[in-house]
């Protein structure tokens, strides 16, 4: 069976190359999220592949929608067919070939979309969005329309994506809706540290033999479009403060050996934070730290600052690192090597560093089991992920 690429490499990989032809996909969220970004990427990918793409839009005027698509870079807009269900709502003229004149007339909506299907024979179709209709029509009419759309898609071998934020549908109604589609993609937006994170989870049909994915963070990059990424937690501190050991203990899986980066000043691993795979990486807190950190601070969700509690000279370096955190990324100071004689207590370190109460200082010794839990929980709390 041919696969239809989403245009997002890592999502395609999880889907085995993309969605199968003639499949139906529900893009669902319970709270406001960036489903439209995903749908736009799907359409732009199709347009660039010289496929005909149909976008049924109840929320944006065609000119506004087209300007959104242009943010993804150059494409031949002739392959993009918009069903304009907005101009009539705001009593504006439309230059589109397919125009819904009355959004409160379901026959009109169905007729215009059916005509567009038959004449354009689209490979990709987006309905943006079902919640507009759910707020205006009885459930039985919605379900009938929904089945009609899916029948049309199957007949034309189109991949059919529907956006839906569930404001008011009860669980059993939603379950019924979910059961009718081949794929369910769930979306949410969550703030982690200083980053507003868009997340998608693929719930796939078990009959297809593919499991549910974890939450996958994604973002928009001008010209490139939608890209997925890993959230990042930075571990920093002076040489020999225990950064590498900290990362090794913290992470379920260290990736330093895979990349051969050990000894180059960078250690890396991965950890599961609220079902989101998060990268943990080490950076030396040396002289170049402040200038380097400024470049990528906005990509970091949290920071562990590791101090050797037996070295008062580490304190000044630690103060500089805290001062360079201008974006106020959530930060936890880890007072390491508490098992050694002469180690400063957390309170002494807080006092010497003149830290505000908002920055936790957690005592630890990497030789003791389970020592990292308080530090990890403190950071996750600050990141809003606990």
């Amino acid at each position, binding site marked *: 069976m041919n696969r239809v690429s989403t245009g997002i490499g890592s999502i395609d990989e999880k889907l085995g190359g993309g969605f199968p032809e003639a499949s139906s996909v529900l893009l669902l969220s319970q709270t406001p999220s960036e489903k439209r970004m995903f749908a736009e990427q799907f359409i732009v990918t199709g347009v660039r592949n010289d496929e005909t793409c149909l976008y049924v839009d*109840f929320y944006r005027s065609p000119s506004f929608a087209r*300007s959104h698509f242009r943010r993804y870079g150059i494409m031949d807009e002739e392959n993009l067919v918009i069903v304009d269900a907005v101009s009539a709502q705001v009593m504006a003229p439309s230059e589109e070939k397919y125009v819904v004149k009355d959004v409160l007339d379901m026959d009109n909506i169905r007729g215009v979309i059916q005509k567009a299907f038959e004449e354009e024979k689209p490979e990709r179709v987006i309905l943006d969005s079902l*919640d507009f209709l759910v707020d205006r029509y009885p459930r039985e009419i919605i379900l009938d329309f929904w089945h009609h759309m899916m029948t049309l898609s199957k007949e034309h071998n189109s991949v059919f994506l529907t956006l839906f934020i569930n404001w008011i549908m009860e669980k059993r109604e939603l379950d019924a809706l979910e059961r009718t589609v081949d794929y369910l993609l769930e979306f949410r937006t969550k703030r982690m540290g200083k980053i507003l994170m868009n997340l998608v989870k693929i719930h796939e049909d078990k009959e297809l033999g593919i499991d549910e994915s974890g939450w996958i963070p994604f973002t928009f990059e001008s010209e490139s479009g939608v890209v997925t990424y890993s959230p990042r937690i930075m571990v920093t501190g002076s040489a020999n403060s225990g950064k590498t050991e900290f990362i090794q203990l913290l992470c379920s899986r260290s990736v330093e050996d895979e990349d051969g980066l050990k000894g180059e000043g960078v250690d890396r691993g991965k950890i599961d934070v609220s079902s989101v795979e998060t990268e943990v990486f080490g950076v030396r807190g040396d002289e170049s730290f402040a200038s380097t950190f400024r470049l990528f601070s906005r990509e970091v969700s949290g920071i562990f600052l590791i101090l050797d509690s037996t070295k008062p000279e580490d304190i000044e370096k630690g103060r500089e690192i805290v001062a360079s955190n201008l974006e106020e990324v959530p930060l936890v100071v880890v007072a390491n090597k508490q098992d050694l004689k002469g180690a400063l207590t957390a309170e002494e370190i807080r006092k010497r560093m003149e830290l505000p109460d908002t920055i936790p200082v957690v005592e630890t010794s990497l030789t003791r089991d389970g020592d990292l839990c308080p530090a990890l929980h403190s950071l996750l709390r600050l990141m809003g992920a606990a």
Partner: protein
Amino acid sequence: MSIERFPNISGLLLKGPSGVGKLEWCLELMKDRLENQDRVVIVCVDYSPEKMRQRAAKFDLNLKDYEGKTLMFIDCLSASLGGLSEVPVSDSTLHVTTLSNIEQIGMNIAKAANTLGEPVSLFFYSLSPLFLHNTPPVLLKFFQIISSQVREKSGFGVFVLHDGVQDDRTTDTLAMMVDGVVEMRFNQKLQREIRIHHIKGVSTKPNWSQFDIGGEMVDVVLSERIPKVKLVEKKAGVDGSP
């Protein structure tokens, strides 16, 4: 116009008839917040940001001074009126395509708060036109999500309602979801009056107090235990019931 701080509650519903002075009171609160370096997000549903700037200027509040630094607009009007054919690029304004697109309003509030840094003071002027484009159950769910987000992030939110657009039951449900309600009305002599209906956790007097826009300033005592709020008023409080 100086103003003492209104209690930092997370959700306040401000209701009253059109023309009574709700916007002016919001502008007073905004001015207080902005002058205290608070971060402010204004959701413009009834007026465009430009109109909001003009109204604010009359109260000696130059919103442009704060835009892109500690102030952002969510413009729900310009695109829906057909005034915009493209997505404008601006550091201080995010656009919503139509008034039925309340998900985009929610997303833009989150984006603005993230850009400015949380917590923020949110001024939603107003909820009422949204009832002409969405059903009450949908809007109540939307409101519950937005007001919860403001509360969760220790923010401050003022949500304005015009009388007569939504039914009483919807208004009561909205009032239940916030921490306080301020009411404005015209009395029988068409004089403006204001009262604190309630603020959770604070004892307030339910008295109506007269005020006017553009007159001399006098204090309205909201409670013996909370700070006074100075409005642009000409008379002291007059007891009475609604």
